[in-house]
């Protein structure tokens, strides 16, 4: 028997798919040209499709409730004159030919949009959906809408009144997927959304009922749907670790191509957690001090020329670290932490001196263990190793844990100062700013001097303003006159 297939047309302007709402015919029914065979719902409207053929329905190729791409064959009709077995091939072929594509693959008769190609090969957006079978039809018996009594049954064709559930979300099966939609079978709330948003939701496989609306009057917006889809959709890789944009690694480009979303992992994640924990548990206070470090610079020059220091890097930071250690020695209460659970303040008799380091993997704060025991040379060596290890990305978790006090050297970026956030578990953090030659009143005259700014943030739960201020003054004092270290050393 010669048969013809009817590919789903684009009944709007540029629609790409439609949902099969209700079949009006069953296998074995006789249809005439223009008899209504099926009701479909597009992004724009409910539409009845008239048969382009006369004959007997051989197979329905798409089930009710499924979404079918334009161009996919949805029904197979046997020629009117051929209810009996095959007539000689060729006889009724003229009619078949006149309808253009009858085999479902690549329709020529769909006029608007994108041609239709082979529906199964369509490479459009991923989504959960039942594909209409292609190729030899597995003569599935038509499913006569076994709608559970509770769901809003497809309205009868001839009642286009306002009561019609135009908004109906396809009864569970199709888009349910990730979202727990099965819980509201009877009193399903009408989801408010504009047709393009509904279309988008369908494209993305998002059940509108699962979307949290944020629009005026509880309307679901485009952004809501996209947000919901992003929560559920697997992501495509946007870049690779060796790209020139390493921060995009393992991220995925948003649907509009204007943003990349990168999962928060490893260093970034730890940094974020640490900063949030710190910022929202420890009340921060920051105090500042501008200081003439010309003598420190001279000391640095001297030490650089010193043979003992030949194999280490001598920097102003080294002196600042030593100054901080000396200040901690004079104000040991600042080298402490707040134990909220035990309701205790833990004073530490050792100093694990943390240095904030910018590395390719992000911010890392390793610390020099027992820094208070180091003389200047071993301290310089320890700092050198610590930064080298961090830059190489080999800082171990142990290196980063147990810090008691931190210095962040924002000066290397040319920054004067900042208000640093405490490393969690510590009571103070020192920001060391850029050192510049500036006009400075020195011995009653204005002279060019090396000047920098110091900032100290501290946890006001256990460090009062007086302690923090005295501590910072002492750090400044040593930097101003390193010889003073002898006095306190």
């Amino acid at each position, binding site marked *: 028997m010669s048969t013809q297939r009817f590919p789903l047309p684009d009944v*709007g302007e540029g629609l790409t798919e439609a949902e099969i709402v209700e079949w009006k015919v069953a296998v074995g029914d006789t249809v005439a040209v223009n008899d209504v065979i099926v009701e479909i719902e597009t992004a724009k*409207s409910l539409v009845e499709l008239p048969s382009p053929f006369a004959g007997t329905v051989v197979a329905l190729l798409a089930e009710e409730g499924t979404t079918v791409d334009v161009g996919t064959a949805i029904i197979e009709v046997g020629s009117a004159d051929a209810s009996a077995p095959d007539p000689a091939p060729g006889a009724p072929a003229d009619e078949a030919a006149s309808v253009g594509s009858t085999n479902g693959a690549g329709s020529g008769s769909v006029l608007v949009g994108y041609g239709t190609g082979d529906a199964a090969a369509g490479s459009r957006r991923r989504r959960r959906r039942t594909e209409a079978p292609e190729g030899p039809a597995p003569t599935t018996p038509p499913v006569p809408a076994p709608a559970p009594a509770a769901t809003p049954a497809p309205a009868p064709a001839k009642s286009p009144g306002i009561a019609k559930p*135009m908004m109906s979300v396809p009864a569970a099966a199709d888009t349910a997927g990730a979202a727990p939609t099965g819980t509201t079978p009877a009193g399903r709330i009408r989801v408010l959304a504009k047709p393009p948003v509904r279309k988008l939701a369908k494209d993305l496989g998002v059940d509108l009922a699962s979307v949290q609306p944020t629009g005026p009057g509880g309307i679901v917006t485009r952004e809501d749907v996209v947000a919901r889809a992003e929560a559920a959709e697997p992501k495509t890789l946007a870049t690779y670790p060796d790209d020139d944009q390493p921060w995009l690694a393992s991220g995925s480009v948003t649907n509009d191509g204007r943003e990349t979303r990168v999962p928060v992992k490893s260093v970034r994640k730890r940094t974020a957690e640490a900063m949030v924990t710190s910022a929202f548990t420890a009340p921060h206070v920051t105090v500042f001090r501008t200081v003439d470090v010309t003598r420190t610079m001279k000391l640095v020059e001297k030490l650089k020329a010193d043979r003992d220091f030949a194999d280490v890097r001598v920097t102003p930071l080294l002196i600042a670290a030593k100054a901080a250690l000396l200040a901690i020695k004079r104000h040991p209460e600042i080298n402490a932490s707040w134990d909220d659970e035990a309701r205790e303040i833990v004073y530490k008799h050792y100093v694990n001196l943390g240095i904030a380091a910018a590395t390719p993997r992000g911010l890392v704060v390793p610390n020099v263990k027992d820094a208070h025991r180091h003389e200047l040379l071993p301290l310089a060596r320890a700092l050198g190793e610590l930064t080298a290890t961090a830059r190489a990305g080999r800082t171990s978790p142990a290196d980063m844990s147990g810090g008691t006090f931190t210095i962040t050297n924002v000066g290397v970026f040319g920054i004067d100062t900042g208000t640093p956030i405490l490393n969690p578990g510590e009571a103070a953090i020192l920001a060391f700013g850029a050192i510049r030659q500036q006009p400075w009143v020195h011995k009653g005259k204005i002279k060019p001097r090396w000047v920098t700014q110091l900032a100290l943030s501290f946890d006001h739960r256990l460090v009062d303003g007086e302690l923090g201020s005295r501590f910072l003054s002492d750090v400044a004092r040593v930097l101003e006159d390193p010889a003073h270290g002898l006095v306190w050393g």
Partner: protein
Amino acid sequence: MNPDAPQSAAAVEDLVQLVAPDGSRTDGPRAAAYRDRVAHIGTDELRAMYRDMVLTRRFDDESTALQRQGELGLYPQGRGQEAAQVGSAYALRPQDFVFPSYREHGVMQVRGVDAVDRLRIYRGTEHGGWDPADHNVQLNTLVLGSQTLHATGYALGVQRDGLVGTGDPQRDTAVVTYFGDGASSQGDVNEALVFAAVNNAPVVFFCQNNQWAISEPTSRQTRWPLYRRGEGFGIPGVRVDGNDVLASYAVMTEALERAYAGDGPTFVEAYTYRMGAHTTSDDPTRYRELAEEEEWALRDPIDRLAALLHAEGRWDDVWAADVEAQADAMAERLRAEVRAIEDPSPASMFDHVYAAGHAQVTVERDWFERYESETAGTTTEAAR
């Protein structure tokens, strides 16, 4: 009750109606003023109008089905507006020129534009579909309302050609532009009214008020009856029952006479109803109520003319069956021929850029044809 819903036709003021929905001739002062204009319309003429209305509706139904079957990209249904279109078109002389929008299938039917040609644009194979000079019908204008300016300009040309006010029915020429209630809000339409009025252009503005500008009711288009829109421009207006083919004819003859005589434009509001969707992309159930559609179904223009023919003993079953057979044949021809319309050759896009030859177009066409022949078989395959 939806306050925006169109008012029932019974309550419409100043409506010229010659045939009531039950097929009886209407009495009253408004009818009396126009009754003489249809006195000469006999059985043959009424039957011809009926035939054209039936064929128009069948064309509408078949085109809609073809769109639903994927054979047309889009189709704007004219269902319900057959009387306004057929009646007004019957009043035209051959030399008159029509500037339609895109829903004037009944006007096309009367003017003799081939049914298949009318669908070429909706199949997306041509920008037009016919030669406007063949039937004095301009191509469909899908840009809302701009055809009113074209019509006004053409009418000014007619005027300057001296084809107005000669008193010679073979020479005096009028221009008609069809548009809708929605288009009446367009700037183009208002500009056309200004130019037509001040220049006394021989043009008839035939506004089919089908109550809905897609989903916007007429009440959202105007706070003032549309037929009085012309007053401020200095254009006389009249409101006719657009579901009454005889009244539409009568009102149109009056407007045309004014144009022929050099007395300037007329604004006709044909009060009717779009029984179908705005286009095949539209779903009217989303914005209007079933009760409203049912009320207007009682005033179906074809039923009304059939009722008149029955009431006056002008109906004949054999003739009516023949009309149906003609409609069936036309539908069958449409199905076969529309599906067989082939894509035009890409080079044909150069054909109508200028009326006569043009050097630059020739160069571009030659280049394009060479390009096409060199890349034949590659780009097209890749495109598929």
